[in-house]
């Protein structure tokens, strides 16, 4: 990364970011104006394909990305009524994620940047998820606390400034979304587990089964979901052995409640501790309706303003990468042509 002169300050022109995201199973491109106005947000989802295998298959995901990427980018430019020459800079997710999948977007973005001589900005995927909150909440500005929950990530973060993060805690084992997928599979709901458990839970009693709320000793902001997952599997086994009929809706609702209780408790503890009056959620699991309802109610009780992206911006998308890329761009961050995919990229690292 090279820091360049901040010559953008002299210009009053619009900054248009073409953003590309291919870290997992969505091929996505977007055009974002001045960081917060989404001109287009195109997502080509592969979920139907991966459902055949019960989860994301990295090689199949990578193959699908290369098939779709040009169409997705062309459609993003078309929908935004923008030509490539009008774009200010190219932003691309370079980690964390599946390395083969990331490399498609990274290679494509580098080539476009090279051919058009537009600046290239490598963006952290989680930074993108957090930034999704800026798109629909024009008033939101750092500092605030953000909980990032998705199939691959569970992070509790203080957003000090644009692009400046302090990680308070993360999961020690399974990500929250991973636990949803595993439990969904165990009760025969299939992939993807999150939305299916969310739906079924509405018919169940969240107090029916007492599943554990795990705490990590000495790390009050860290999470652990593997014990909860095991407790659900043990419960299912013991019912099976005793010949007790399982109420799947009760299992789903009780499991979901156990996850949400922990997420809410840790998050709001952090908000109080750090004294911010603003709290945001992000990531795929952030579209879970019970999670949103719980945070809405608890934040209202404590007079904390609660922010959350709409579902389309919770899932992997490129608009959020465009927003994060914009704030990197105005800070003068530029990537060079040797930008590589970094599957385990840590938040706040470059």
């Amino acid at each position, binding site marked *: 990364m090279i820091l360049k002169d901040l010559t953008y300050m002299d210009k009053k022109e619009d900054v248009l970011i073409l953003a590309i995201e291919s870290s997992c199973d969505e091929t996505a491109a977007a055009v974002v104006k001045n960081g917060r106005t989404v001109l287009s947000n195109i997502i080509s989802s592969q979920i139907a394909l991966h459902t055949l295998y019960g989860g994301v298959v990295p*090689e199949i995901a990578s193959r699908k990305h290369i098939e779709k990427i040009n169409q997705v980018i062309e459609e993003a430019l078309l929908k935004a009524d923008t030509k490539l020459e009008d774009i200010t800079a190219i932003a691309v997710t370079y980690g964390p994620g599946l390395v083969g999948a990331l490399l498609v977007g990274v290679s494509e973005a580098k080539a476009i940047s090279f051919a058009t001589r537009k600046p290239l900005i490598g963006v952290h995927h989680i930074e993108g998820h957090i930034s999704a909150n800026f798109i629909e909440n024009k008033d939101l500005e750092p500092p605030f606390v953000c909980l990032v929950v998705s199939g691959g990530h569970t992070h509790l973060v203080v957003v000090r400034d644009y692009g400046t993060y302090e990680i308070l805690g993360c999961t020690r084992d399974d990500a929250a979304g991973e636990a949803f997928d595993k439990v969904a599979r165990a009760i025969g709901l299939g992939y993807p587990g999150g939305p299916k458990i969310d739906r079924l839970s509405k018919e169940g009693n969240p107090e029916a089964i007492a599943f554990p709320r795990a705490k990590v000793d000495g790390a009050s902001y860290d999470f652990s979901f593997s014990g909860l997952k095991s407790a659900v599997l043990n419960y299912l086994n013991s019912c099976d052995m005793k010949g007790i009929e399982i109420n799947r809706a009760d299992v789903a609702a009780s499991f979901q409640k156990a996850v949400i209780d922990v997420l809410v408790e840790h998050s709001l503890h952090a908000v109080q501790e750090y004294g911010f009056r603003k709290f945001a959620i992000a990531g795929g699991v952030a579209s879970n309706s019970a999670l949103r309802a719980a945070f809405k109610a608890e934040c209202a009780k404590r007079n904390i303003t609660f922010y959350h992206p709409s579902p389309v911006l919770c899932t992997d998308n490129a608009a959020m990468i465009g927003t994060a890329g914009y704030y990197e761009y105005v800070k003068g961050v530029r990537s060079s042509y*040797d930008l590589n995919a970094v599957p385990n990229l840590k938040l706040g690292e470059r």
Partner: protein
Amino acid sequence: MKILALDSSGLVASVAVVEDDVTVAEYTLNYKKTHSQTLLPMLDEIRRMTELDLNTIDALAVASGPGSFTGLRIGSATAKGLGLALSLPIIPVPTVDALAYNLYGSEKLICPLMDARRNQVYTGLYTFKGDTLVTIEPQCAVDIADIISHINEIGKAAVFLGDGVCVYQERIAGLVRVSYEFAPPCCNRQRAACVAALGEKLYRAGVVQEAAQHTPDYLRLSQAERERNQKSKEG
């Protein structure tokens, strides 16, 4: 006609600009760095050193497979990005054909070998009749013994090249019953100038794609698909 060619199918990363009968620039690396770190910087170096105006390029040629799945996609995504930005078509050049093109004019049996893991090689059999590359066995993923038994059947002197040679040297010595040799280091690995030269012939024969339509030709399904097909066959 000016062609920009890329090959990142194997261990080698190679970029070339070929205009009509002249190789204006070729940059080939066989080093441990990943292709995603080398390919674009190499192209950038060529642009600087030859004052290349990308708008003068007529077509992109890319080694389109078989090869390392990830390597192929780095080359393809780079070509697709260039194609999108410059409105250029892509000429998909079969990787093994382009490797054989290294030995232009040889009347021996040309047998490129790329290590394909899982005890297989990506290979094929070729020879030259005049200036024409004749395909005897099209590129495929097979056991080394299969391709060598084909060579023995034909009974003509053979020449081997490619990164599979060092992996299978002993097997070759044990199995081949014709006279054979290994190509020297100046022409025994992927070279983008070969991709460009063969690419031009393909282009004139109408083998060309829109950048958006281009995908690598892996010659193999993913492991998950293979296992799923196997299961459905059994079940």
